């Protein structure tokens, strides 16, 4: 009875301390110029890619046929609505850079021993780990939302004279939700690998490796069930229309949610169990 009461009191204290700890972590994130530079580079690359693709997207709309299809690639026609909704997640091309941002956010702790100060300020490791993951997740979400907004502007520029309401339909918001889930999950994967290895470089290399495994399609051929568990593969399974997907969209949502929850949880356990160095 007393033990239960003590546990409950401790949980209540932790919950009360969480908002301040998250706020402190957000201050850490937004006061390091490198984080802003990385975020700006990611957004700028998205703008650059979309600018390059803009004429092609205009041509795609010009290819609109009476049956409602457009030519998405030479000889390949798709329903126009599907084709333009997919453009709302054009930032998928840039998204492999989001784990770099996650790694930068996490890595600042280990460069000069700041982790020692963090533990001095928030000595309950579980609380510290939760605050770190929540703050990183929130910042990644905001950057991903900005990417999504950029994608929306470029789609709107193309479809304004044809179907101006297209980027604001329920289905359009569902596409954005899929992208945001992936972006935050993958960013948190970079964050978690960095916390576990205490190295920004290892976080970057780890997530690049995860991306490369998906892009080479090797694992998809050899062990599709394992491939489906990788975050970039899950994004493909969730958002790309193809015959050679390794899992259903529902499976992909579960995988991405799993990465978003489990990767920071494992990092939190590691952070809690070892000395703050």
């Amino acid at each position, binding site marked *: 009875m007393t033990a239960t009461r003590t546990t409950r009191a401790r949980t209540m204290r932790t919950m009360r301390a969480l908002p301040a700890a998250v706020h402190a*972590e957000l*201050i850490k994130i937004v006061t390091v110029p490198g984080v802003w530079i990385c975020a700006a580079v990611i957004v700028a690359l998205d703008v650059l890619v979309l600018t390059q693709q803009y004429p092609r997207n205009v041509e795609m709309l010009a290819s609109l046929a009476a049956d409602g299809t457009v030519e998405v690639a030479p000889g390949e026609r798709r329903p126009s609505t599907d084709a333009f909704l997919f453009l709302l997640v054009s930032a998928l091309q840039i998204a492999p850079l989001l784990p770099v941002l996650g790694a930068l956010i996490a890595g600042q702790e280990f460069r000069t021993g700041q982790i020692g*100060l963090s533990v*001095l300020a928030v*000595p309950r490791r579980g609380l510290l780990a939760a605050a770190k993951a929540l703050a990183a997740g929130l910042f990644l979400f905001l950057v991903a939302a900005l990417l999504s907004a950029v994608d929306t502007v470029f789609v709107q520029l193309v479809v304004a004279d044809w179907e101006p309401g297209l980027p604001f339909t329920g289905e359009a918001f569902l596409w954005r939700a899929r992208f945001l889930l992936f972006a935050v999950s993958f960013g948190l994967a970079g964050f978690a690998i960095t916390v576990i290895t205490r190295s920004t470089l290892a976080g970057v290399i780890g997530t690049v490796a995860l991306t490369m495994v998906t892009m080479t399609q090797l694992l998809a051929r050899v062990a599709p069930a394992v491939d489906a568990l990788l975050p970039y593969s899950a994004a493909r399974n969730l958002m790309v229309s193809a015959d050679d997907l390794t899992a259903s969209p529902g499976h992909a949502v579960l995988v991405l949610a799993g990465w978003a929850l489990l990767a920071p949880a494992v990092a939190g356990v590691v952070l809690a169990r070892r*000395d*703050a160095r």
Partner: protein
Amino acid sequence: MIEISRLTKRYGGTTAVDDVSFTVRPGRVTGLLGPNGAGKSSTLRVLLGLDAAGSGTALIDGRPYRELDRPLRTVGALLDGAGPVPERRGVDHLAWLARSNRIPRGRVREVLGLVGLGGAARRRVRTYSLGMRQRLGIAAALLGDPEYLILDEPWNGLDPVGIRWVRELIRGHAASGRTVLLSSHLMAETSAIADDVVVINQGRVVAQGPIDEVTAGHESLEAAFFALIGSGR
């Protein structure tokens, strides 16, 4: 009161702290002395919850550090090897620390003024001299106006003015009935302000008590220290 009892800490196969016990009393300055690698910093790290103890206890106000609510309001610490991110501004470094313990933002400017960094608050830490970084670390320790000050090598990088300022700060803190535990290599500075000393060598306490008792029969704290650790160098 700080109570360290039968504390042991190992890193791999190396025993850094071996069955260490001592008490730090309020209203007094306690100096923790020892050569490099003696176990001073490891003892402080375990006391502050950064490293887990192998065995034994380290308590502040009767509780482990990690059980303190808003710990910066109880304990202010300056630790070697736990520094700010160089790209961050000094004021921002203190801002996140303050926010984490719900310390009013106004206190940040107050302590920056107190340590003489008011004019450099908006500069990035990488542009600070070693002495300015040390002052920033002391500002962080003072942020919560704590009952306890735990300072690891507080005079590092400070000029004579800074050294005197830290000396007065420590004495003033103890004079107000609060508790100071400091670790240092500087015998002259330590002997000038410490009421009690704990001498550690190779992870074990080799002497402790009021400074007059520890130095009895020796011409200085330095002479007593070298006699205790068995080195005339």
